[in-house]
C-alpha cells in the first residue's frame, strides 16, 4: 500500500527502526478492503441515472426526479467563487455506482453481511453489533464510564450495509434506514420532503447528487418523540475512482428531538476522489436536531497528492416556530473542502447554531462556513468558527448572515478565530452580512493568532513533547466547539486534531 511496506532494512538500519517508522501511520484509516465490486460503467448519462435508480429498485417517480435533476445539471457550470484550486474534474472518468458483490442479494440482517465488510467497519472502530458503547472518559471532571447506545447506519461506497437497533427504534416510532429503503418503504415521506430544503437545482454539486445519489440515511422522528438513542452514519469510500454521492434526509416532526452523528473515512490513494453529498434537515415546531460531523476523508499526502474533493451541501430548514438546529463540524480531512452547513430560520423564535473546527495541513484547502438566513421574527443564530492552518494549507471561513425584512428583533453572534501554525499557510475570513430591518442585531468578532514558540517551549519545558504540546494548544483554541460535540465524538475529535497536525512543527 505504501512504499514503506516493501522497504528493506538498509545496512546499519535495524528492523526496529523500520518498524517504528511504519507504525507511525499518519492517516490510520488509509487501508483499503479487497472486495469484489459491482460497478456501473464509468461516466454519467441518462442511462447511468436510470441504472442507479433501477439498482435501488426505485419507483418511477423517483427515476423521473433524478432525470429531471440530471438534465438540469447538464446546463450548469461548476462554481468557481470559492478560494480553492484544483485541476478540472472529468465527470465522465468517475464511477457513479459501486456495490460490493456480496450485497447484490440483499442481506436480511447484519448476520448475513459479508464478514469482510463487517471487518472493515470493525477496523474503523465502528460498532455494527448492537452493543453498548462504553465511553471511558478521561479528564479532570471524571465521571464514571457510562453505557450509551448509538444506532449506526454504515454506508460502504454506494450502498448502505445495514442499520443497527432498527427494532428498538421502531418501537419508539422512529424510522432510521437507508434512503433507498425509505424511497421504497416510506414514499409519502420522501416525496414530501426530498429536495424541499435543498432543491434539485440548488447548485452544481447538489444537482449532480440529486441525479446520481446512490444511498444515504433517512430519519423520521414522529411528533413529540425524543429519539431514544443517538443516531449515526459512517461513510466509507473504498473503491477507486468512485464518486460518493450520498443523500441524507432527516425530519424532526413537532416537538421531537434527535442527535445525529456523521463520520467519514477513505483509503489512501494517489488519485483524487469526488464526494458530493446533500444533507437536508427539516425541523418542525418546537423540534430540535443536533447534527455533528467528524469529517476525516483522506486529505492527500504531505506533498498534496491524492485526497478527497469534498463538495457538500448541507442545509437545515427550521420550518416551525421555536424550531432549533445545531450543526457541529470537525473538518480535518479532504484535499479540498467546499461546505457551508446552513440554517433557514423560517419559524418565529427559531434558532440556528453552527460550531466548526476546520483544520488544514500540508496542501489541504478548505473553504467552509455557514449561512444563517433569518426569515422569522425573534430568530437567533450563533456562529463559532475555529480555523486552523498549518503547512502550506489555505483555510477560508465564508459565512452569510442575512436578516430579512420580516425577521424583526432577530440576533446573530459570530465569532471567527483563525490560528496559524508556521509561516507558509493562510487564513482568510469572508463574512457577508445583510440586514434588511432595523430591529435586528448582528455581532461579528474575528481574531487571527499564531501558535508561538514561547507557548511551545513552555509546554516542552514541562515535559510535553512538541507534537503533544501543539495538540494541546490547538485543542485549547478549539475548546468551545469541542465542548459542543457529543462526548464520544469529542474524544475522537481531540485525537483527530493531534493526528491531523502531525509533522506541522519542527
Amino acid at each position: 500500500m505504501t512504499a514503506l511496506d516493501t522497504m528493506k532494512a538498509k545496512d546499519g538500519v535495524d528492523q526496529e527502526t523500520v518498524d517504528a517508522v511504519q507504525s507511525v501511520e499518519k492517516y490510520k484509516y488509509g487501508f483499503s478492503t479487497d472486495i469484489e465490486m459491482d460497478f456501473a460503467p464509468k461516466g454519467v448519462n441518462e442511462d447511468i441515472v436510470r441504472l442507479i435508480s433501477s439498482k435501488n429498485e426505485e419507483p418511477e417517480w423517483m427515476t423521473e426526479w433524478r432525470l429531471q435533476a440530471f438534465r438540469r445539471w447538464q446546463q450548469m457550470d461548476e462554481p468557481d467563487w470559492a478560494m480553492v484550486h484544483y485541476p478540472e474534474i472529468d465527470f465522465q472518468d468517475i464511477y457513479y455506482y459501486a456495490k460490493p458483490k456480496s450485497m447484490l442479494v440483499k442481506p436480511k440482517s447484519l448476520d448475513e453481511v459479508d464478514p469482510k465488510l463487517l471487518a472493515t467497519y470493525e477496523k474503523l472502530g465502528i460498532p455494527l453489533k448492537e452493543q453498548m458503547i462504553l465511553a471511558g472518559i478521561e479528564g479532570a471532571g471524571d465521571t464514571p464510564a457510562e453505557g450509551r447506545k448509538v444506532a449506526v447506519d454504515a454506508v460502504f461506497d454506494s450502498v448502505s450495509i445495514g442499520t443497527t437497533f432498527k427494532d428498538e427504534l421502531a418501537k419508539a416510532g422512529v424510522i432510521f434506514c437507508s434512503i433507498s429503503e425509505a424511497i421504497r418503504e416510506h414514499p409519502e415521506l420522501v416525496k414530501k420532503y426530498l429536495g424541499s430544503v435543498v432543491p434539485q437545482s440548488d447548485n452544481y454539486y447538489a444537482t449532480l447528487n440529486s441525479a446520481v445519489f446512490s444511498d444515504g440515511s433517512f430519519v423520521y422522528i414522529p411528533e413529540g418523540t425524543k429519539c431514544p438513542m443517538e443516531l449515526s452514519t459512517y461513510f466509507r469510500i473504498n473503491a477507486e475512482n468512485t464518486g460518493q454521492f450520498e443523500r441524507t434526509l432527516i425530519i424532526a416532526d413537532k416537538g421531537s428531538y434527535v442527535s445525529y452523528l456523521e463520520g467519514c473515512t477513505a483509503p489512501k490513494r494517489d488519485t483524487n476522489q469526488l464526494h458530493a453529498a446533500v444533507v437536508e434537515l427539516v425541523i418542525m415546531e418546537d423540534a430540535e436536531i443536533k447534527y455533528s460531523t467528524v469529517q476525516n476523508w483522506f486529505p492527500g499526502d504531505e506533498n498534496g497528492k491524492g485526497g478527497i474533493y469534498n463538495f457538500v451541501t448541507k442545509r437545515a430548514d427550521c420550518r416551525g416556530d421555536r424550531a432549533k438546529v445545531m450543526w457541529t463540524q470537525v473538518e480535518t480531512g479532504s484535499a479540498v473542502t467546499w461546505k457551508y452547513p446552513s440554517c433557514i430560520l423560517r419559524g418565529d423564535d427559531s434558532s440556528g447554531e453552527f460550531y466548526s473546527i476546520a483544520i488544514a495541513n500540508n496542501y489541504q484547502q478548505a473553504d467552509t462556513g455557514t449561512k444563517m438566513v433569518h426569515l422569522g421574527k425573534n430568530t437567533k443564530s450563533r456562529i463559532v468558527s475555529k480555523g486552523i492552518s498549518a503547512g502550506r494549507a489555505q483555510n477560508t471561513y465564508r459565512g452569510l448572515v442575512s436578516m430579512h425584512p420580516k425577521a424583526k428583533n432577530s440576533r446573530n453572534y459570530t465569532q471567527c478565530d483563525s490560528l496559524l501554525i508556521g509561516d507558509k499557510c493562510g487564513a482568510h475570513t469572508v463574512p457577508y452580512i445583510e440586514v434588511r430591518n432595523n430591529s435586528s442585531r448582528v455581532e461579528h468578532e474575528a481574531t487571527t493568532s499564531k501558535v508561538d514558540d514561547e507557548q511551545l517551549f513552555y509546554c516542552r519545558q514541562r515535559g510535553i513533547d512538541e507534537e503533544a504540546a501543539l495538540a494541546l494548544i490547538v485543542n485549547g483554541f478549539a475548546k468551545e466547539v469541542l465542548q459542543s460535540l457529543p462526548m464520544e465524538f469529542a474524544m475522537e475529535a481531540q485525537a483527530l486534531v493531534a493526528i491531523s497536525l502531525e509533522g506541522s512543527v519542527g
Partner: protein
Amino acid sequence: MLKIENLQVKLEEEDKQILKGLSLTVPSGEVHAIMGPNGSGKSTMSYVLSGKGGYEVTGGSATLDGVDLLAMEPEERAAAGLFLAFQYPVEIPGVGNMTFLRTAVNSQRKSRGEDEMSAAEFLKVIRAKAKSLKIDAEMLKRPVNVGFSGGEKKRNEILQMAMLEPKMCVLDETDSGLDVDAMKLVAEGVNALRDGKRSFLVITHYQRLLDHIKPDVVHIMADGRIIKSGGPELALEVENNGYADLLAEVA
C-alpha cells in the same frame, strides 16, 4: 548535581557571544543564588540549560547527575529532572491549568518508564499542594495563566514545580514584579520543596528574596561568566555597594 563547565553560548541569529566560559556547580540539596547586572547572561543561562531555541552552544558542557543536558530535547531535560520557573510564564488559552499539569506530569512519567498518575490520584495530590501554596481551587480550573495576576502566575510556577518534583529547579527572577507578601508566599513554597536532595539555582536581582530563601552559595555573574562566589554575605555586599567594586576587582 548540576555541573556547568566552561559554557560558551552565542545567539543563533547574530554573532554575539553571551556566555563566555561559564562554570558553576550546584551539588544536590544545595541552594545557589546568581546575581549580576543586567545583560550579564543570567536568563540566557536558564534558557540554554532548558533547551530553548535561538542559542548556539559553541563550547563547554552542562550535565545533571552526569547526564549531558545539552544533547537532549527540552522535554527530555524536563523528564531528567530539570525545571525552569519562568520569569514571564506564558498564557495558553483554552487549556485548563489542571489538564496542562496532568499532561505534563504523565508525559514525564511516561518518558521515565513510570506508570501514569490516575485522575483521582492526581486530583488528590494537586488539591493538597495547591492548598499549601494558598492557591484557590478556582485557579486550577482556569486556562493556564490566562488572566492571572503577576503573583498568581508565579505561584502557579511553584505549584507546577511542586507537582513535577524536579531534581534541579532554576528560578529565573521569580521575585520580579511581586509585592512583599506574594514574594513571601512564593519563597515559602520553594522552602517547602527543600528536602536535602533537591537543588535550586535562584536567579535574582535583589537580596530580599534571599532573606526568605536562604542560599548556601551566592555567585556573581558578569559578562557571561561567574566572577565571584561566596556565602550569603556576598548578596548583602551587592545590596549595599552595587556591582562596581566587584567588577573593578576582576577587571
